[in-house]
């Protein structure tokens, strides 16, 4: 079943490449639809009451180096799978491009499914790296003056991170003789590697994932990459690719390094707070809309890291707080994925209409295109964390949990909320109200096709904002199991 899910987009990529050019977009949409259906089937067959792995498939692969084809999902994996199945079609609909774009997008989708289901490090790493090359080529398609430079920066940065991670994991393999996540998690409480080398391993794995998330100060590749990539690609980058890092922390760092995290936690917590506050301040200072959203992404992912590290280093061991913080992190992952993708979609629409995307290049849009502005404000308010919309739940839970676990860090991080709000409100004001800017071209209203793309996403945002319980149900048992590690 999971293997099928991974294979569908891959077959789609081959089909898109092999068949004539004019049918590549419908074909790609068809295959993403098929994988969305497969994800839903997985969801039905998944029993949310159980905490452990389900729907396991395992086969021998390279026994000599401990590699095994081992896939399975728990609630956390399923959440990420669902997110992937939502964002990729959204991005494909948002960007009308030629064949290679569709094919690479499908390869990326397959790599993402693989990353979120693999339970053996080598297999996980295979998929993790498989996403790298399509992402690189997709960013390059932006075609702007800096796109190839930013694509290279993205690639080299991430590659360096994953090389470090690989070397770290080799050390674990040598001391424990397995790459299996489940077995390693069982062995972890006694320490996976002994002596000072344990720290080298811990730091290299954290570094590899921190680059991907990204965590301050390894975030510098992100604004460049997000800004120069085509809109559809930015949506995927921020919507899911950055979540691979978060997923990595949940799967590789929290269960495997409880002792190291206890000691290093406060430092990592400080980095997370820096991410939140500095990136929000940087977003405030941007004049380019896409750059602003990129920095906001860094800030929002900082909340996820705040939740994780507050749990890991927390002074209190109250299960309720830990549960709240962890659930908040995963809610935030899902909601930020949707919201940030929607924001990039709107930035892309603005750019398509005006050829510009500076915050100050527009003005008075509310008078010309009220429906457009209404939907865009919805996404912006969700990003700002307005109660009743999806963005609020994750942040609220993270803060609820982490205020008792790490009071000081959380108080400082709360400043980030303020700066985010200021940055977004400033942008809204400049875009929607104020005097009409004299423009060469008229500003058309949302077309029916654009409305059809954004309406389901907006409904989803409202729906999660009002009744988030259905999302909790997916990952609740897994989170309860995870929080036992720390309480």
């Amino acid at each position: 079943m999971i293997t099928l899910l991974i294979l569908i987009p891959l077959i789609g990529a081959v089909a898109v490449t092999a068949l004539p050019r004019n049918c590549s977009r419908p074909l790609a949409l068809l295959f993403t639809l098929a994988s969305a259906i497969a994800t839903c089937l997985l969801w039905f067959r998944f029993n949310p009451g159980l905490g452990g792995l389900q729907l396991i498939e395992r086969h021998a692969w390279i026994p000599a180096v401990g590699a095994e084809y081992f896939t399975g999902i728990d609630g956390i994996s399923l959440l990420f799978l669902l997110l992937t199945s939502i964002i990729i079609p959204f991005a494909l609909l948002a960007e009308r491009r030629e064949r290679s774009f569709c094919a690479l997008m499908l390869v990326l989708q397959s790599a993402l499914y693989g990353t979120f289901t693999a339970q053996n490090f080598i297999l996980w790493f295979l998929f993790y790296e498989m996403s790298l090359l399509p992402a690189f080529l997709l960013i390059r398609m932006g075609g702007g003056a800096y796109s190839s430079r930013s694509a290279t920066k993205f690639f080299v940065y991430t590659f360096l991170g994953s090389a470090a991670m690989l070397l770290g994991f080799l050390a674990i393999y040598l001391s424990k003789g397995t790459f299996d996540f489940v077995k390693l998690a069982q062995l972890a409480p006694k320490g996976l590697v002994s002596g000072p080398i344990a720290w080298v391993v811990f730091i290299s794995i954290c570094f590899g994932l921190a680059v991907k998330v990204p965590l301050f100060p390894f975030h510098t590749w992100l604004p460049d990459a997000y800004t120069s990539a085509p809109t559809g690609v930015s949506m995927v980058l921020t919507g899911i690719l950055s979540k691979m890092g978060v997923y990595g922390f949940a799967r590789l760092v929290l269960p495997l390094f409880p002792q190291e995290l206890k000691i290093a936690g406060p430092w990592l917590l400080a980095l997370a707070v820096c991410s939140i506050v500095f990136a929000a301040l940087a977003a405030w200072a941007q004049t380019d809309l896409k750059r602003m959203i990129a920095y906001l992404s860094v800030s929002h992912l900082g909340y996820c890291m705040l939740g994780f590290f507050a749990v890991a280093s927390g002074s209190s061991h109250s299960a309720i707080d830990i549960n709240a913080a962890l659930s908040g992190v995963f809610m935030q992952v899902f909601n930020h994925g949707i919201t940030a993708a929607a924001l990039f979609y709107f930035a892309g629409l603005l750019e398509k209409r005006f050829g510009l995307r500076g915050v100050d290049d527009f003005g008075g849009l509310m008078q010309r295109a009220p429906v457009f502005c209404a939907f865009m404000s919805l996404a912006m308010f969700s990003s700002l964390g307005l109660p009743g919309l999806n963005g609020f739940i994750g942040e609220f839970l993270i803060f609820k949990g982490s205020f008792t676990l790490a009071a000081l860090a959380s108080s400082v991080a709360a400043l980030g909320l303020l700066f985010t709000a200021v940055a977004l409100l400033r942008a809204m004001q400049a875009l929607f109200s104020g005097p009409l800017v004299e423009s060469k071209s008229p500003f058309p209203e949302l077309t029916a096709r654009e409305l059809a793309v954004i309406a389901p996403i907006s409904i989803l945002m409202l729906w999660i904002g009002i009744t988030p319980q259905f999302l909790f149900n997916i990952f609740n048992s897994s989170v309860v199991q995870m929080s036992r590690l720390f309480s």
Partner: protein
Amino acid sequence: MIAWTIYATFAGALLLLVLPRSAARWLALLTAATGLAVSCAAFFNVTDPGTLKNIVQIPWIPSFGGMSFHLAADGISLTMAVVTGLTGVGAVLFSWNVHRRQNEFFFWLLLVIGGSYGVFLSADLFLFFVFYELVIIPKYLLIATWGSTNKAYGAMKLTLYSFFGGALVLIPLIPACLSAGTFDLQLLSVHVFPLAFQAWAFPVMFLGFAVLAAIWPLHTWAPTGHSAAPTAGSMLLAGVVMKLGAYGALRVAMNLFPQGFQSWRGLIAILAIIGICYAAAVALRQRDLKFVIGYSSVSHMGFVLLGLATAQRLGVSGAVLQMFSHGVIAGLLFAVAGRMIYERTHTRDLFALSEMKLNRAIPFAAFTFVVASAASMGIPGFSGFAAEITILIGLWHAYPVLVPVAGIGMALTAAFTLRALRFSFFGDKSPAPPLECLPITLAEKCGASLLMAATLAVGLYPKLLLDRILPCVDAMRFLKP
């Protein structure tokens, strides 16, 4: 059966001299394909890959130390025979458009292939050495006659280095065989040489072999030779000939002198790791595409030497895996650079190529180059990763300190490969329309697909090779302290 790779290849080469021109390339293809088919059949049918099994043994010059025509194969030899076959077929397919003195060209090409099969299958050191030296002369002629840029210099430098390496091998080889009273590799590999002899014989012989494997700082012949050679020449040079050195180092030097190896392996590891990082850093600054690939070969061969130096089960197996993997990947890279790009654009200058929008002009070449680059960078799913991770596990056991340095080398490799990729195919900044050029021919597509399938197959299922390599490595003497 596997002996037929040698016979068929040499027979094909001789036939080429008498047949008319029109049949030349088809005959060459047939011969190379026969070699590949025979080696694949032997590779898949091997029952007990761990032991060196006799194939042919005919007395040759019995009065002088018992030299004989003695062929034997184990899993490692068969692996190397398969990569020789793959590269051979690829080389013929990518020389489909050679028109000048065609028969002669393919004759020399087949001699290189046949000689390489001979080296990988010999179980008599004298025979081994004959084949080893046999490869050098055709290589010189291929480069000097059909080569490009600076071919006389490149050919001469490569030949002198090879002969120098060969001489170094011979110095300890003769006294070793005389004192043991045999040239037979199976007998020699159980003979115990005095420690004092091993202490000097090992480094001299290893260095001799390592010259051909482009060990730093004796690697300089490789980039110049590779870039001067015709496409098929570069493919064979990188794909097979460099492996002859590494294979000799493993099969002869390390296996005959285990104690000597144990005392020198630290130095080998250091030279290898310098080679990995240094060559990758140099590749980052090259303008000529073939020089980039030439230096990348040096860097990848550094991984082979590093794997050997670990003296550790997985490390050494990884080295053999890397020999296979690099043979295929380097073949692909040179095929794209030399045949697909150079013969259409007549330039290899990266800055000139970046103006041409080659990804639109020849999309198949772009696709091939992306796959080859991914494999070369060690992206999981391709053979390069399977080899590097196996070597790194061995390295963690043997020299954990060197692991981060190897990591830096891998990152540098990614950087220069990406740079080459960007400039050569995706440098679409200029407003000029894509270059008008001939489409990719069927022969090129077949050759590229064959090699891509090989790297993907081994990358996804390295057990195929490891099952045959690991038992051989386990049987080797130097593993036991």
